[in-house]
């Protein structure tokens, strides 16, 4: 009999016998499923958050803030400064006007829909240019706010996550009452967590005079960033930092996604260890349950290698089945599951979806394969080294 036929025969026999060891096999499968599930679950949270943050940042948009500001919240710019910035070279001009938006960023207190606990929700005052700087804003419901009126439009995520933000409802923020007139999407970016209103009404509602916190400008070309940033640095009237919006958003996302990953990866490694221990146990039990069978096979001429391999194949099979179950459950339960958390960088809520990406699913299955291989290795060696004569006598 060729080695290959032997392997086939032994593996098939082993797998057919699996139901007899259902209890202990189920433990291994379940263990791997849990590990892969938690692994994918936690990382899909990190990837979802990161996706939301990076979606919001464009390479061809620059954000300008007071120098030294770590976020829009801590920045402050006068009206004159915002005007000067938009007239610099490098800014995209359309119909004789700079494509730009000077914006205010304040945090307002609105209860969460699910729990009723209050949450720091970002309220952004924008100029009409905001809709050209960001080219992915689309209205899902309602209309845009009218300039000069106390009207709000709310991001899709904010609408989903926070209470009282349906179209037509009024929201009282301090002394001012606002009417919700529209719901918008922003390509999945973090703007969807925000409330938007006309910059001038936000200025008066929050007594900001004629000051702003940031200016976003559309760049004339890919290479215009260096030019623009040099111009800002050289202008003695301006004390500002310029960043690509994509870089800025990545910076904002970093602490939280680092935190999630810093917990997620060690968690996955630790849990995998636990699962490997469990799998080794299961496979040793399997080998000892098959002692007689293995010894008989060896006695009638089967090689040690096919016997060892069949143990490894069994272990792999159990692990991969577990991995697939874990991945599937997490995909079905968590993909697109919306959560919100406070992003310490901006001191305000970010709404994001768990993103169970193909990449993560593959990583999860790879983890399962590793668990299966490691878990099956030593038991396989034991199976191969089983002393045939004594094993045959064993009961």
């Amino acid at each position, binding site marked *: 009999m060729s080695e290959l036929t032997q392997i086939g025969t032994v593996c098939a026999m082993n797998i057919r016998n699996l139901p007899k060891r259902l209890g202990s096999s189920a433990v291994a499968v379940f263990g791997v499923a849990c590990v892969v599930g938690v692994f994918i679950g936690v990382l899909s949270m990190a990837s979802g958050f990161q996706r939301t943050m990076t979606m919001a940042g464009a390479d061809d948009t620059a954000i300008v803030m007071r120098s030294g500001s770590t976020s829009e919240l801590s920045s402050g710019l006068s009206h004159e400064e915002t005007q000067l910035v938009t007239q610099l070279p490098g800014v995209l001009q359309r119909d004789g006007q700079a494509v730009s938006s000077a914006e205010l960023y304040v945090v307002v207190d609105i209860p969460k829909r699910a*729990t009723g606990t209050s949450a720091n929700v970002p309220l952004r005052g924008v100029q009409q240019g905001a809709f050209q700087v960001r080219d992915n804003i689309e209205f899902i419901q309602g209309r845009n706010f009218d300039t000069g009126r106390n009207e709000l439009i709310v991001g899709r995520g904010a609408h989903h996550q926070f209470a009282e933000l349906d179209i037509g409802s009024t929201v009282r923020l301090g002394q001012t009452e606002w009417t919700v007139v529209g719901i918008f999407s922003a390509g999945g970016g973090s703007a969807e967590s925000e409330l938007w209103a006309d910059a001038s009404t936000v200025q008066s509602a929050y007594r900001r005079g004629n000051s702003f916190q940031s200016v976003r400008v559309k760049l004339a070309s890919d290479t215009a960033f260096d030019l623009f940033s040099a111009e800002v640095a050289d202008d003695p009237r301006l004390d500002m930092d310029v960043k690509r919006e994509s870089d800025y958003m990545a910076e904002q996302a970093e602490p939280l996604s680092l935190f999630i990953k810093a917990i997620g990866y060690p968690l996955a490694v630790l849990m995998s260890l*636990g699962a490997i221990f469990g799998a080794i146990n299961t496979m040793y039990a399997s080998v000892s349950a098959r002692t007689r069978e293995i010894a008989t096979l060896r006695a009638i001429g089967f090689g040690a290698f096919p016997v060892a391999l069949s143990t490894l194949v069994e272990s792999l099979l159990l692990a991969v089945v577990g991995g697939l179950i874990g991945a599937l459950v997490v995909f079905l339960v968590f993909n697109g599951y919306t959560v919100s958390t406070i992003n310490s960088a901006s001191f305000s809520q970010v709404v994001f979806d768990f993103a169970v990406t193909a990449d993560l699913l593959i990583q999860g299955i790879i983890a399962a394969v590793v668990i299966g291989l490691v878990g099956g290795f030593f038991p396989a060696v034991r199976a191969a080294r089983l002393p045939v004569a004594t094993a045959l006598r064993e009961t």
Partner: protein
Amino acid sequence: MKYFYFIWKNLVRKKLRTTLTILSIAVAFILFGALGSINAAFSQGAEIAGADRLLTIHKVSLIQSLPYSYVNRVRGVEGVNEVTYASWFGGYYQEPRNQFAQFAVDADSYFSIYSDLMTLPEDQMRAWKNNRMGAVIGPVLAQRFGWEVGDRVPLFSMFPQQDGSRNWEFVIEGIFSAQASGADEGSMLFHHEYFDEARQWDQGTVGWLVIEVDDPEQAAEVAERVDALFANSPTETKTSTEKAFIEAFMAQFGDIGTITGLILGAVFFTMLLVAANTMSQAVRERIPEMAILKTLGFSDRSVLIMVLAESILMALIGGLLGLLLAWLMVGGVAAEVAAFLPGFSMPARVWSNGVLAIVLLGVIAGLLPAIQGMRLNIVTALGRR
């Protein structure tokens, strides 16, 4: 205890299997300890909150400030014993990543209201009050940057000074000690007067008020009275107990608690199965022996207890090992995460809950096999018929 030797010998009979199972349990409890500590770090503020303290903030948002005049107006409210105030400074040392909490405060009233949480040596208090630019810091912060009393420390703030400069200079005049380990140990306090006079905007305002009430039982009424005082004014307030405030703020992190709970649940269930599997294997291969024990006159109950004891012993070894490792790990990273999780440590409650969970795990894992052992019929088990 005379059975201990026998139980122990049974446990170590299959050394490899027992070791692997103990290691899986250890892993579960490393996670238990670590996640429990993270969870506790997120919620510890609420635990140290004083029942007699109220916080008054701008109704729209914490980041809006209140007029300074509110301090004295609130002092006059019935049921209010004392009022202090503070403002957020939002600065960092040298680099943006060196962020920590700095508050501009009123020295006397602040330390008086928070006397249960922090104390400053009297001579340092005197020195601090005599220096306009003086600041006091928590021990964790002192350790983090190696600051000592007398050091001049420049901080970069979101608040510009009158001349537009964002560089603020402080002189460390004291190091306060914080009773409960919490955010306070990594923070810095300095004079509100210095801050308010020098800053470019928002002058004459404070970030929030801290109220000490006469009678904690009356806290809710006092809070209502304060908010009523400013109702329909341009700057309305929202007053809540310190505990409620911290809890509400922590709730903003959202589902961290739920998510940790889910993970722990999944881990636990897995480890429970692994341990239960080991125990049932152990009992299965030992059935004749248990029958002999019964033949010798051991009661059903003592067989049950022996199996359970073995299971619990196994869980205890693994679990305590895990908790110990978690404790070491938490201690190891505490310094590194001090920036955003100050006072990160493994609290006693995690230990006690952990031990409880260990025993529970041991009992549940061993229960079915133990009952199987207990119900064992000698005649059939020995094949004697």
